[in-house]
């Protein structure tokens, strides 16, 4: 279990990092490494050049502008989990991050790493979709590019990030009046979700006025489900829509029918919570 040979660079500036990604076809950015390094150890991942992002200045910043909360791609899970601004402006992330792995992994793993890996069972991609976040990418050739989170996750371990791009940050709209809900079912503490659900809801006059949701672990990638959101808002049986809408993943321990069952379970719990709170 040792990686195949690779070349390694730790650029000190963003421009240098982007140049490397532009020049080297087989360059792979290394953020927290909590998934990439084991994949390399198993020789499932075999990057020719590792571009270590950990020396890039400022990429781990967490800051609020009047409109958005910005979380740098290199912000560690533990930092996001503990940050006052996150608690105030995007508490959904704190709820979800409590379920992410274990302390030592959270100390090293990064927001950007998790988003760009796009593991179907990962919590943070679903949160970004539910938060209606915008992901800001950069490349040497094209400069900055903004992609809505709902358009970023393209499938199993697939995203809209191009090989020469780096994710710089997530921008989460500051949304007073919205409240979060996150739950997941995992076999053990910190395991990837068999199914999880991230929900943001806004209430007005004692009823749900707006709602965004996204599952993790259920399908190949998190996505918005407008029909389901509308049904929740209108108080119809939203869970009954899921069998017709979802294409659940299946595995030996968690067959597709089970994931669908869990998705319905979570949606009912979330709906109940949203209406009760409203």
């Amino acid at each position, binding site marked *: 279990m040792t990686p195949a040979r690779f070349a390694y660079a730790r650029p000190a500036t963003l421009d240098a990092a982007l140049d490397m990604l532009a020049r080297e076809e087989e360059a792979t950015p290394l953020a927290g490494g909590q998934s990439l390094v084991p994949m*390399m150890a198993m020789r499932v991942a075999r990057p020719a050049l590792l571009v270590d992002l950990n020396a890039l200045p400022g990429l781990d910043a967490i800051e609020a502008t009047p409109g958005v909360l910005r979380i740098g791609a290199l912000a560690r899970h533990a930092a996001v989990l503990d940050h006052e601004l996150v608690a105030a402006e995007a508490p959904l992330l704190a709820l979800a991050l409590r379920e992410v792995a274990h302390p*030592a992994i959270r100390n*090293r793993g990064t927001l950007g790493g998790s988003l760009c890996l796009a593991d179907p069972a990962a919590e943070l991609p679903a949160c970004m979709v539910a938060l209606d976040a915008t992901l800001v990418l950069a490349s040497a050739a094209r400069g900055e590019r903004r992609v809505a989170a709902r358009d970023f996750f393209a499938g199993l371990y697939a995203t809209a990030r191009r090989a020469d791009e780096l994710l710089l940050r997530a921008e989460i709209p500051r949304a007073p009046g919205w409240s979060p809900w996150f739950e997941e079912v995992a076999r053990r503490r910190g395991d990837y979700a068999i199914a999880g659900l991230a929900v943001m809801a806004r209430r007005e006059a004692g009823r749900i006025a707006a709602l965004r949701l996204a599952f993790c672990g259920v399908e190949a990638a998190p996505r918005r489900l407008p029909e389901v959101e509308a049904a929740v808002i209108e108080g119809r049986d939203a869970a009954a829509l899921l069998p017709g809408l979802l294409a659940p993943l299946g595995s030996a321990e968690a067959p597709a029918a089970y994931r669908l069952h869990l998705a319905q379970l979570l949606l009912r719990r979330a709906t109940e919570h949203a209406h009760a709170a409203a």
Partner: protein
Amino acid sequence: MLPPDEPLAEIACRVNGRAVRGRAALRQTLVEWLRADLGLTGSHVGCAHGVCGACHVRLDGAVVRGCLVLAAQADGATVETIEAAGGPEEAALRDAFVAHAGLQCGFCTPGMILQAAELLQRNPAPSREAIRDALSGNYCRCTGYHAIVDAVEAAARALRGPAATA
């Protein structure tokens, strides 16, 4: 002796309070380098894929999986291993692990102690549930965890002082 074509990294860092310069194969992980080149064999390799927690070390003050950080990434960093970890939390934990038989084979213990110390630095009076939660990424195959939780509780009490034991 590595063949001349093996890519190497130059590393200058602080390990257990001392400045260290060395070379590592690029594909060597931090824990392998600490063990093989610096002789710091207290951190163990139990799975090499980031699951078991036996390889925990402190990197720039935070406990991390030593098998998921490349040795090259430690260049410029501060590293602390079980051999030197000597804060009040570790001292209390060592005593308590011994007294409560919070270890059997001892392979997981260094990682456990580092992780538990980080917990106690943040939460001086954790519940048993909080202890189990904080240690959920550290596998022990011998003890059934009960005695480990006992030991961390006892260390927390000892650190809080005589008033806490009443």
